[in-house]
C-alpha cells in the first residue's frame, strides 16, 4: 500500500526566512503533485512533477522530485505571510495507474510577521 508522509506537520516561520517541506512516499511512482489549501477553502494545484529530477518554480516556491529516493521537496524562499496555508503533496498510486492520487498528511505553514 502506498503511503505518503510529509514533514514537518506544522511549521511556524518568520517572514523572510527559508525552509523546506519534505514529502516521502513508500512505493515506486514518477509523478507527484503539490497543492495548497487555505482555511475553509478547496485545493489549488501548485506544481506537477512528472519525472525524476523535475524542478518547478513559481514565485517564492520551488518543488523538486527525486524518484530514486522517493522524495519531493517544496522549498520556500524568503517567506511572506501570504504563503500561510496547508500544503499537500500527492502521489500517483502506481506507475500506469489511472488518476488515483494518494495524498500526504499535509503541512500547516504559518508565516509570522
Amino acid at each position: 500500500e502506498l503511503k505518503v508522509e510529509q514533514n514537518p506537520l506544522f511549521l511556524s516561520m518568520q517572514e523572510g526566512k527559508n525552509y523546506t517541506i519534505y514529502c516521502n512516499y513508500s512505493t515506486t511512482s514518477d509523478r507527484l503533485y503539490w497543492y495548497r489549501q487555505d482555511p475553509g477553502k478547496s485545493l489549488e494545484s501548485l506544481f506537477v512533477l512528472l519525472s525524476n529530477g523535475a524542478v518547478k518554480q513559481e514565485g517564492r516556491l520551488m518543488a523538486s522530485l527525486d524518484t530514486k529516493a522517493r522524495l519531493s521537496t517544496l522549498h520556500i524562499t524568503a517567506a511572506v505571510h501570504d504563503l500561510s496555508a496547508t500544503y499537500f503533496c500527492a502521489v500517483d498510486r502506481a506507475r500506469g495507474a489511472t488518476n488515483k492520487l494518494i495524498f500526504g498528511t499535509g503541512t500547516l505553514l504559518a508565516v509570522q510577521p
Partner: protein
Amino acid sequence: SAVISQKPSRDICQRGTSLTIQCQVDSQVTMMFWYRQQPGQSLTLIATANQGSEATYESGFVIDKFPISRPNLTFSTLTVSNMSPEDSSIYLCSVGTGLAGSNEQFFGPGTRLTVL
C-alpha cells in the same frame, strides 16, 4: 483548468438521514473523483465516478453507504446515506484531464457536512 461547482456548499443534517451532493463541471471530463477530508486531516479517495457504469470504490468505502451517479461527462452526485456524526467531513469532487501524461486533478469548492 475546468471550473467545478458543488451543491450544497454546507449542510447540517440529523443522524440517520441522507444527503446528496452535486458536482458540476463546465466542460466534459473523463475522470471524476470523490474525496473525503475529515476535520484537520488529509484527503481520502472515496471512489472514482465512471460515466455509464458503476463507480469504483476504494477500500473502506461501499456503495450502500456512498452511492454515486455519473449520468454524463459533466455531472456527478455523491450520496452520504444513513449518516452518523462520524460522517461529518468536507466532501470534495475533483476532475482529471489526463492531458500530457499528467494525472493532475482540479478540485471543487467542497461541501462541508455536519451530522448531529
